[in-house]
């Protein structure tokens, strides 16, 4: 199974794309002067360059676990999109791009901690979706699994800047769940507190 993040395997390319969009969490943090310092926090490139100092090496295992889940989800979107019709297919392509953005962000955090990113698996268990409904169900369940994993990891990560960066990914996955639920004919946000256990 193609994992999907072959499109963004190397660190520099997705970061550059991220910087172009000026939407990276690290950039957001730079606005608070929490990554880098002084003039380094003024530009995106320099802020990202300085981000490594704030990520603990002890958090690498946690971040690698999250990266593995993101790659699983990327693989599911890659496999599921051909089964979907318009407009769900278009939406799923958008979400795939965002999942790749998540893997890029996690890779940058891992590298910031001077860690080694976990190797991509040769294949992922995708439960063989055969229809659009199967694909939506698979994507929905993987997005929920990610939410649960991020919520479990958040209190164990430190410092707060890393938590916020990871929360910006969790929050994006929660948005995916809301839109996927609508596509499945369900209420978009069933609870006031997102837990991943709907």
């Amino acid at each position, binding site marked *: 199974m193609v994992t999907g993040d072959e499109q963004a395997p190397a660190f520099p390319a997705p970061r550059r794309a*991220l910087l172009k*969009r000026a*939407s*990276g*969490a690290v950039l*957001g*943090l730079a*606005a*608070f002067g*929490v990554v880098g310092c002084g003039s380094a926090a003024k530009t995106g490139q320099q802020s990202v360059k300085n981000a490594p100092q704030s990520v603990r090496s002890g958090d690498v295992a946690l971040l690698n676990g999250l990266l593995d889940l993101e790659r699983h989800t990327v693989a599911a979107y890659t496999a599921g999109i051909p089964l979907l019709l318009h*407009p769900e297919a*278009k*939406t799923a392509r*958008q*979400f795939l*791009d*965002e*999942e*790749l*953005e*998540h893997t890029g*962000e996690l890779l940058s955090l891992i590298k910031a901690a001077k860690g080694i990113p976990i190797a991509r698996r040769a294949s992922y268990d995708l439960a063989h979706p055969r229809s659009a409904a199967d694909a939506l169900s698979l994507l929905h369940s993987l997005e929920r699994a990610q*939410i649960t994993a*991020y*919520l479990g990891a*958040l*209190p164990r990560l430190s*410092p*707060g*800047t890393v*938590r*916020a960066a990871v*929360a*910006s*990914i*969790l*929050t*994006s*996955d*929660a*948005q*995916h*769940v*809301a*839109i996927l639920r*609508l596509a499945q004919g369900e*209420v*978009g*946000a069933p*609870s*006031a*507190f*997102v*837990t991943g256990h709907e």
Partner: protein
Amino acid sequence: MSEAGATPRLTRRRLLALGVGSPVLAVGLEGAQLALATAAHAESGVRLADADRLRRLVSVELLMLYCYEHVLAGSLLDARSRRLITPLRAHEQAHVRVLSAHLTALGGTPPAPPASVKEADRNLARRGVAGRLGQLTGGRDALFLLLAVEKVVVGAYFVALIKLNDLQLVTLAAQIMANDAQHEALVGEALYPGDAQKAVPSGLVQGTQ
């Protein structure tokens, strides 16, 4: 509320168990007392900082709730938008309720909601939101305003996650931030049906700070 995530609570008994006072020297006991006082002071500071952050979150959630109530009380929204938006009001009420309970447990006092449209509009202006409740001209106008305020709310949680100390509050803030981001997506979906690129434009959600 649990202090699970905060600095471990140092009690006199715990310090003694750790051997702080075991030599039974006067100097040791004085040192232990000083350590206790310092720890208590630090713990108090952490609680105050968390309470302040919670008060800010309750304040922005109350503004959000006021905006939903105002928009839903009128007839600006079409049926589809109303169906999408109506459940979100109850979520905001739940956020306010739970955050206020935590704030009270930390010794803080929850702020009051906006007393009028005029006051809410002043609050919106202060937070850099362009729209005004008192000047809504149609359904899309109302949805754009709700979207803008949701972004401010998400941004407030993003900052809170950097600053909160209590790990239980960190988890709670993340759960609510994720829900408010879902609201952002659903309001976006009401504005741009079927267009995820506009409804969910970014993979890293931080709101507006």
